[in-house]
């Protein structure tokens, strides 16, 4: 699978832009703030119906405008697929596949697997559990449509239950019968989702360990485990035991929205004890393991987006990554870099068809280095 071309209209800092891609390496060069990463984000939109950076669709529209469109043509194993994404403020987002509107976003997500490596987003490691749940949910949603449907239902029922708890708190009137349908759904869905998460982590862990060892070239050992109450025998009892606490706090305290994925290095949480270099290696290993599991389950190499890696990684890690590129472990690649000569130099040594694009304040042109 690869993306043949991309057309933007009023997307982020682009009035309009049109790009024809190489099916191997594509490198966007330009100074910081020129809009290189926005091109990667447009590809992210086509694949996953959302931005990798800004969750508010409206905020991705060009300043003072009221809509954007992103259009791209993908070459698939057997046919080609035209995807158009339209976001208009005040209206429902639209994804159009070969001229036909997609009814449910879960019917689109997973069709076009994509992995993004942005070495700066170490929030995944440093921040609270929400970032890690988002990362694993994002992977699972691309791999398993029923997981995504369950997750959407869970989040909806959770919002309803929290609104109900808030109302009970404000009015001082508690209607336990009304909590019941939400409790039953959240318990049922928590069990299903937690079982899938656990199963996924079991399959994902060996890949992660292998890639970490490779990318870091070090001997420290890392580990990952899934931290949840929802797989416990007595989860249901615990859920109901917490009901009085929920009523006091006016929010739901049990369920898969409290889960975490714990990352460790030599048996200590990497969040606190890992060096910056170790954290970056961990982040890249997480993404490479993601790439591999997608490749395996989808039978196609995902599109790989590498944001600003030459600037943010040290020579050793760049070399390791480029070795994987040279070994043709990846499929189509999109790279951004602020220094054109540097990426041209690095990519020159690799036997692959590379295309360069120069980005200047929302304008893109082919660059013949």
């Amino acid at each position, binding site marked *: 699978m690869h993306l043949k071309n991309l057309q933007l209209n009023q997307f982020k800092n682009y009035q309009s832009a049109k790009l024809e891609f190489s099916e191997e390496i594509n490198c966007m060069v330009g100074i910081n703030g020129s809009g290189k990463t926005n091109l990667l984000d447009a590809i992210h939109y086509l694949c996953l119906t959302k931005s990798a950076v800004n969750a508010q669709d409206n905020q991705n529209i060009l300043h003072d405008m009221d809509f954007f469109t992103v259009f791209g043509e993908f070459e698939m194993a057997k046919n080609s697929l035209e995807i158009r994404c339209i976001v208009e403020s005040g209206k429902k987002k639209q994804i159009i596949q070969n001229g036909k509107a997609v009814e449910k976003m879960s019917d689109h997500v997973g069709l076009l697997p994509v992995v993004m490596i942005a070495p700066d987003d170490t929030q995944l490691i440093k921040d609270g559990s929400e970032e890690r749940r988002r990362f694993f949910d994002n992977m699972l949603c691309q791999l398993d449509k029923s997981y995504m449907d369950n997750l959407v239902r869970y989040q*909806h029922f959770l919002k*309803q239950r929290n609104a109900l708890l808030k*109302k009970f708190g404000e009015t001082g009137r508690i*209607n336990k019968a009304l909590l*019941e*349908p*939400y409790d039953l759904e959240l318990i049922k869905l928590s069990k299903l989702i937690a079982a899938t998460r656990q199963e996924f982590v079991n399959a994902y862990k060996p890949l992660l360990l292998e890639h970490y060892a490779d990318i870091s070239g070090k001997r420290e050992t890392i580990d990952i485990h899934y931290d949840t109450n929802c797989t416990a025998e007595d989860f249901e009892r615990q859920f109901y035991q917490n009901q009085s606490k929920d009523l006091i706090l006016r929010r739901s305290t049990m369920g898969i929205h409290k889960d975490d994925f714990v990352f460790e290095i030599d048996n200590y949480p990497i969040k606190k004890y890992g060096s910056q270099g170790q954290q970056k290696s961990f982040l890249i290993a997480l993404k490479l393991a993601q790439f591999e599991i997608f490749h395996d389950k989808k039978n196609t190499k995902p599109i790989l987006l590498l944001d600003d890696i030459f600037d943010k990684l040290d020579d050793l890690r760049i070399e390791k990554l480029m070795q994987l590129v040279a070994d043709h472990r990846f499929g189509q690649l999109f790279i951004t870099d602020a220094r054109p000569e540097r990426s041209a130099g690095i990519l020159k040594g690799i036997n692959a068809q590379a295309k360069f694009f120069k980005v200047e304040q929302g304008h893109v042109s082919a660059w013949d280095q």
Partner: protein
Amino acid sequence: MNFPSKLIEDAVTEISRLPGIGKKTALRLALHLLKQKEAVTESLSQSITKMRTEIKYCSVCHNISDTEVCGICTSMRRDKSTICVVEEIPDVLAIENTSQYNGLYHVLGGVISPIQGIGPDELKIDSLINRVAKVSSGDKVDEVILALPATMEGDTTSFYITRKLKEYGVKVSTIARGIPIGGELEYTDEVTLGRSILTRVNYSAD
């Protein structure tokens, strides 16, 4: 949009408040009305005002009615032992148009959704319970059919009502959900298809 007249602008603003009507369509409608005889627009605005001020809701089933109790609730030919619970008034019309149902209705006026501030108190749920509980009037209710939307809110509401009705020993059923007539299996979404298989019915070859 810039208007040559404040009067037109006001009319356009009001008309564009209607569902599915944007500013452009509103302007087209306003200009159309301007071309009509005065009696036509007079009659239009009067009928709207009259409808709004004089319309009644049936005190039993909460459907629209010109009288205190609606025609369906008072009809001698309807089966008063069955109540079909629907979300909104158009649902009554939809079921009536099938000519397959001869019982009574109960219009809830919405479904439970705490996010939107809609709880049982905002809906005609207590009124439904009272209809089922009240045996003295002579019309005993044997069955309540839940015909609510197949959404998370619809299902929550059905669940809540079922629990509330439990102590009255009334039969509670829900309308079947499945493959549309003339529909192809391969084009039916997975959830509907899955549900149709789980809730399959005996095949009668008679």
